[in-house]
């Protein structure tokens, strides 16, 4: 990566301050380059590595370049390896695609970002050719899940090495390596769960993943009947809650949408620290945690990682801001959430135990999957969804699977004092319980 980066830096630096044939003068540049290698292999219908899940090794060098020209003009381009082979042709295209942007950001000054450990030796060894563990995860997962009576096991292991370089003409040069790992196991087309970190799972974590997926599928294979339609307790499991947070909260916290009046929240709402949710709820991004999937050292623009509260004690703090939208809104840029709702940190002074709560629950649903979340109007906060994989609970006992339509208002869920946040086994994100309308 450093060779590619150094050569690109050299080519760009020779252009700095020069007036080009198009009349443009380059005043600065930045780029974010990734040299990635992936090993991916899957299991489909209990069989490892068929034509759809064959083991694959992938290599790619790509990234984004941003050129700063005189007169508030900018160029943004996604680039790949051959940019150096054909630099003049690319440069001519970049000149043609320069556009004026009064809110175009300044370049970040050089600094040393936090040294967050993100590259795991075990993952690196696999990508260096010791492929066995990737296959072993699938073989073990298959064995554990079939032990729960699962007929059809599907799964996928993806292990990556990303050598990243973020640099600019001010002298910023941040190079680091990270190893994202994703392991998915699912059964009988009913339910699946994912491990995603920048390291390999330990044995307990892996066994826990397979056992949770197997147990849940087993429960979902038992059928029950919804006793009535109407309002009842609905528990969103952490992965479903994260999907809701991503669709509703993160969409509306997008700096671009706030600045362009396309969010449920106005810029003024942040300036006034408007109270929108219950006052014990704090929602943050934190890119500094070692080996976490959502961690990184700096953004593609060079903004350092860090922890940022987006909502503090129920009040709006800041949208998620890149340099441009920070400038447009007159605020500071923020750390960026990676991996959607999974990358958010939910802080609450009190969480109840999931198992304890379930034992006391008179009647309710545990929702493991919903269909159609992406079709909902993120700006309105309302939802009406098919909960295709849900378990009915009565008098503290799981009865079996029901298919329902759930409807409610996610803003009210986050605002209501009656909403209960639950510590869920193996998960950092809580499950959330609230009352919603449930129909067949």
């Amino acid at each position, binding site marked *: 990566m450093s060779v590619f980066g150094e050569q690109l830096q050299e080519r760009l630096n020779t252009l700095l301050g020069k007036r080009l044939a198009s009349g443009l003068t380059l005043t600065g540049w930045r780029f974010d380059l990734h040299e990635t290698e992936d090993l991916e292999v899957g299991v489909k219908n209990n069989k490892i590595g068929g034509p759809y899940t064959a083991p694959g*090794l992938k290599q*790619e060098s790509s990234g984004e370049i941003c050129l700063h020209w005189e007169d508030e003009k900018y160029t943004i381009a996604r680039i790949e390896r051959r*940019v150096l082979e054909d630099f003049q042709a690319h440069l001519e295209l970049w000149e043609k695609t320069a556009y004026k942007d009064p809110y175009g950001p300044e370049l970040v000054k050089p600094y040393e970002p936090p040294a967050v450990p993100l590259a795991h030796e075990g993952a690196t060894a696999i990508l260096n050719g010791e492929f066995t563990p990737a296959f072993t995860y699938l073989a073990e997962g298959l064995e554990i899940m079939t032990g729960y009576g699962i007929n059809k096991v599907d799964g996928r292991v993806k292990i990556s090495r990303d050598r990243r370089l973020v640099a600019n003409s001010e002298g910023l040069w941040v190079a680091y390596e990270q190893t994202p790992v994703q392991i998915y196991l699912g059964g009988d087309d009913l339910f699946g769960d994912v491990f995603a970190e920048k390291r390999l799972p330990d044995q307990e974590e892996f066994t826990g993943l397979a056992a949770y997926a197997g147990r849940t599928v087993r429960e979902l294979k038992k059928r029950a009947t919804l006793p009535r339609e109407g309002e009842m307790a609905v528990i969103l499991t952490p992965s479903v809650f994260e999907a809701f947070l991503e669709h509703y909260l993160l969409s509306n916290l997008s700096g671009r949408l706030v600045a362009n009046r396309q969010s449920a929240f106005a810029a003024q709402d942040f300036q006034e620290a408007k109270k929108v949710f219950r006052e014990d709820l704090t929602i943050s991004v934190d890119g500094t945690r070692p080996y976490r999937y959502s961690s990184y050292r700096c953004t593609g623009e060079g903004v350092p990682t860090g922890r940022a509260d987006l909502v503090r004690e129920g009040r709006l703090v800041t949208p998620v801001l890149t340099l441009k939208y920070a400038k447009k809104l007159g605020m500071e840029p923020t750390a960026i959430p990676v991996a959607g709702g999974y990358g958010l940190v939910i802080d609450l002074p009190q969480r109840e135990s999931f198992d304890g709560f379930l034992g006391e629950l008179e009647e309710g649903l545990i929702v493991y999957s919903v269909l159609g979340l992406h*079709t909902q109007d993120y700006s309105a906060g309302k939802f009406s*969804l098919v909960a295709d994989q849900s378990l009915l609970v009565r008098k503290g006992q799981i009865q079996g699977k029901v298919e329902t*339509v759930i409807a409610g208002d996610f803003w009210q869920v986050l605002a209501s004092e009656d909403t209960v946040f639950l510590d869920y086994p193996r998960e950092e994100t809580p499950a959330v319980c609230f009352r919603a309308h449930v129909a067949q």
Partner: protein
Amino acid sequence: MTRSLRVDAYDETVEAAVAMGRREQVGFILRIQEKKELLFNLNNGETEEIATTSLRGMGIQVCTPEGYTGFASSDRIDPSTVTELFQQALKLAKRVEAMKGEANKALFSAPPNNRRVVVPLKYPYGSCSLAEIEERLVKLNKSLALDPRLSVRTVHRLVDEEWRVVRHDGTDTAFMTPRSFIYNTFTARENGKTATTYCNLPGTDLSILLEPAETAKLYKRSVRAARMALDLLHAGTVKSGSYKLVIDYALAKVLAHEAFGHAAETDEMESSILGENGRLRRGMEVASPIVSIIDGPVEGDYAYQPVSANGIDRQTVYIVRDGILEAGLADLFSAEAAGVPVTGAGRAESYQHLPLARMSNIRIQVKDPWPIEEEFEEITPEKLYEIMLRTGLMKEGEEVYYLSGFKGGQVNSAEGNFVFNCAGIYLLGPEPRLYQPAIFSGKVLSALRAVRAGLGPLKIDAMGTCGKMAQGVPSSGGSHYFLVLDKNPGIMLGGEGR
């Protein structure tokens, strides 16, 4: 058809792959992709971003004589890299064999293909200055600021993409998959309430921006969507339940694609509601006898792909003919197990991906549709009500809801559940009343059996991106302007009890 393509430049790489195949005595599919892309993003009259993308690379799928598969890809395209990738893929295939993984020898039964498809484009990538494109988009975006409560976002994407697919058996096919769209998003805000609507115009080149007839069509769609966003600020909600429904062709495309097309893809036949013991249930009655469902490439269409990612010509397939399940969307590797012929349905997002059985343009066709002379964009809910009365498809005072526009959908093919959302709902009547969008959900087969009539000619330009197995490929389709669905307990509108 002799025009050169960019992917023609890789003959040496192709020869190196063929030589490797001979030396190792294994089969292979080599996919070479070249893509250039332009993206414009405008908000409220200002250009927010113009971005270009350049992508090229190759992926090689190697298959041993015993049927074990390995894959490797790189963004370098040259003879030494293809040799290296070949060895890596073969090593991985042997690893699968050692683990007694899945074997599939279908690659060795495919007929060779040397088809070459160059799509004629009136305004291809590079035919218009970027400054002119930007100027036209800014003008369009500004012209849609119809009300101070509205925020308007315009996205324009133009993709110039070429593929070359080569196999050990002498297959060497090259084709273009050009595409473009303009997508407008309208967010209306008032007193803390918000509503968002969308509209788009897809195509294959810059005609969508440069041809007056196309821009006029987009403008009409946009004004309609913008007004709906404003009206939704004051709209109520529909009481959930089963109703007689009218859906427009965009929603019908989602019904065809999400609710039915995925279930007909043969690589998921083990768990599809249209399969039994892994085989397609041909001859099964799945829809009203007036309904046919067809998928196939249409030149000039947003999702056009004439040749599969496995190098096999893509066929136009009657999945359902007159209500009876007739064929599957079958790629090379799953057709035999599903008991159907290969239809060339394999598609891949990029050279880095293994192809899956996918749709292209899928449409619902109804026998003896009621004619409509006007353009779709001219049919207001008031006019639709008049047409429904005139054709006897509804009576005065009957409760019929018209679902307008679409916001995507999702399906569980294994259980046959679907969910779609529309942009807005009208209760048809002399003065149609607008309601908030609500999901349209239910059982796939219930929906298809409920189709009672089609209104107007076929309109198949509803666009989308299909995200099966986390691979995004363009999709499109439609139906007659409108489909009328009888009230059916298996189809539900809304989820609220009010």
